[in-house]
């Protein structure tokens, strides 16, 4: 678990209050990931134009052999037969949708636990769209012994900014081990 995954799970929980639909969008061929992202933005724009009140969460997944594809959870029913021509227009191939429970939505969080691929540097692995109350990573507070030690050191030693971060973390780790 990390803060991003926690924020995703909380957001999925909020979204699940009205029922969830899980979508998977894939391509027939493997595409460059930047191209995939462009096509996704195009497709999402088309969907939001057609269904302005559509809310959801999207997760990028880099498959071992099929390249980048997109998983989406939405809060309302959308006719897949109406959606497929839009997907085709934006350059997508296969569209699959099924109704899921909130627990099933947590399945998507597993992609957020994986080690980030170098090509995903500075990318948002998940994002929310639409007008709804979602959790943000900046609002997530972590409560662990290490986090407590870090906060205490920050107050006592006056740590500010990000300089000497590695040295700070080593100090925290040493103090943490001393607590055993």
């Amino acid at each position, binding site marked *: 678990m990390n803060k991003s995954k926690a924020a995703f799970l*909380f957001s999925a929980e909020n979204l699940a209050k009205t029922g969830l639909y899980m979508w998977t969008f894939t391509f027939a061929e493997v595409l460059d990931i930047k191209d995939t992202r462009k096509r996704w933005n195009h497709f999402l724009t088309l969907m939001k134009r057609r269904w302005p009140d559509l809310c959801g969460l999207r997760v990028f997944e880099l498959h071992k052999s099929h390249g980048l594809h997109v998983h989406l959870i939405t809060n309302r029913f959308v006719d897949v037969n109406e959606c497929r021509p839009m997907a085709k227009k934006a350059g997508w191939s296969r569209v699959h949708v099924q109704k899921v429970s909130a627990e099933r939505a947590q399945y998507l969080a597993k992609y957020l636990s994986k080690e980030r691929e170098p090509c995903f540097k500075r990318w948002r692995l998940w994002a929310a769209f639409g007008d709804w109350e979602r*959790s943000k990573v900046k*609002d*997530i*507070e972590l*409560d662990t*012994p290490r986090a407590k030690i870090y906060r205490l050191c920050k107050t006592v030693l006056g740590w500010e900014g990000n300089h000497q971060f590695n040295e700070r*973390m*080593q100090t925290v*780790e040493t103090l943490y081990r001393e607590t055993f």
Partner: protein
Amino acid sequence: MEKIIEAIKQGKILFVGEYRGHRVETIRYVDKKTGQKAEFLSIVYLVERRNGSEVVMVSQDPGAGVKDAAEVKITAQKGKLYAFELSGLENVRGMLRARMPAGVELLAA
């Protein structure tokens, strides 16, 4: 020792070290805006390598059925050698951290 040999034969990755202590920690994530929270338990073992040069933190999920820290029972004795079955090992800023699969017991070496 037989259990360790059996585990090695099964292809399990083991790390042998001196058990120095453990603690059951509660890890909490709280959303300051909505108040939602998620919490889970983690067992953290402090293990010293035999040459005494390095300390390794081994963490383990106590399992889905365990809800309270008091339910976790560890019978390992401080100062004795144990084998820890590993599911992950990483070097975080020059410090070794390892993970054990849930529900796996320590093997006396």
